[in-house]
């Protein structure tokens, strides 16, 4: 029978690397999609997830409820993605809030770009907090209560962020969707 998260977390605390490998195997791709959507690329998401797991390994003692290891790990994923997007925003003007420029790039220089690429680029134009809320709500399909638990943000604020994200996406994708 497979060991529970609690058993594996306790084993990792005792220095058992095999138990750590088992946790990695269990949650390996659980949050990959979120990381890819937040960072905008698989390569960057790979870096983020390496950092996530090393932070989890170093701080496993701080996982106060090992039965809910997955939720604790999700919090680390969200924090690492925030750190990553914040650093990138400082160094990369591509992520500066400039929807007109992005739309021009979509419609002029890449006329045949796939629909999904257009949506991803529009998503990248959103402020990080709106992107995070939109992805958690509509891509990961989490209820607001769970979103509040893992982000540390109140339900009302999250609803507002999702609403604003939808408004912004509607502006950015005008012409692609006519909803």
């Amino acid at each position, binding site marked *: 029978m497979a060991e529970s998260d609690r058993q594996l977390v*306790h084993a990792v*605390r*005792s*220095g058992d*690397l095999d138990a*750590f*490998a088992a946790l*990695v*195997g269990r949650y*390996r*791709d659980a949050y*990959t*999609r979120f*990381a*890819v*959507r937040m960072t905008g690329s*698989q390569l960057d*998401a*790979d870096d983020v*997830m*390496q950092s996530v*797991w*090393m932070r989890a*390994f*170093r*701080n496993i*003692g*701080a996982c*106060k*409820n*090992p039965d809910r290891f997955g939720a*604790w790990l999700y*919090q*680390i994923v969200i*924090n690492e993605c925030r750190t990553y997007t914040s650093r990138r925003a400082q160094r990369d003007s591509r992520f500066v809030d400039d929807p007109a420029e992005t739309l021009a790039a979509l419609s002029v220089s890449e006329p045949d770009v796939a*629909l*999904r690429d257009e*949506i*991803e680029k*529009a*998503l990248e134009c959103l402020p990080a907090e709106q992107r995070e809320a*939109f*992805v958690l*709500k*509509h*891509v990961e*399909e989490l209820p607001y209560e769970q979103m509040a638990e893992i982000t*540390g943000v109140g339900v009302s604020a999250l609803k507002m962020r*999702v*609403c604003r994200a*939808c408004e912004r*996406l*509607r502006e950015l*994708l005008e012409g692609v*969707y006519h*909803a």
Partner: protein
Amino acid sequence: MRDNEARDREFAEQIARPLREVELLAPDFEARLMAQARAEVARREATRPRRSWWITGRVFVASPLTTLAMAAGIAVVAAASTLVVARRAQPTITASRDTVEFVRFVLVDSTARSVSVVGDFNGWKRDETPLNATSKAGVWSVSLRLSPGRHEYAFIVDGKRWVVDPASIASSDEFGTESSVLLVSPARIGAS
């Protein structure tokens, strides 16, 4: 209003559907990660400070009848060792099967009306493990039997105040909440 909500939901669904496609990490992700983890463990081992002769491991074997007396004795050794070395290194209380496995938690707080200890060993339940007031004013203590391994704990004073052990190394979780770290490892009693 309801039409707007329905329209928003439909729009969000249109946007989100293509983004729900499963994403997978590179096939060598685990191998790279485990190499990092192994390197980190090796680094920790290599940089672990040497113990002085007076805090080198000791094994205390005790019968059930003498266990309480031994626990009290260990408390003195552990508390003294911790107080002396905590500024330099992580305190380690060690034990093994067939040896005394009690760890004594002591907090000095002359203003406290009640003290309890919370940690991974009691599910962080604040009412689970109260400390007892000792004959010395302001000194609270309790002895617990702990399994070998790394433990995190904190004291709760007067049912609401979270206090990290001033004589121990602190560790922070994702949200900056500090707790104290205690290592209980087999075969030795001492501090590293």
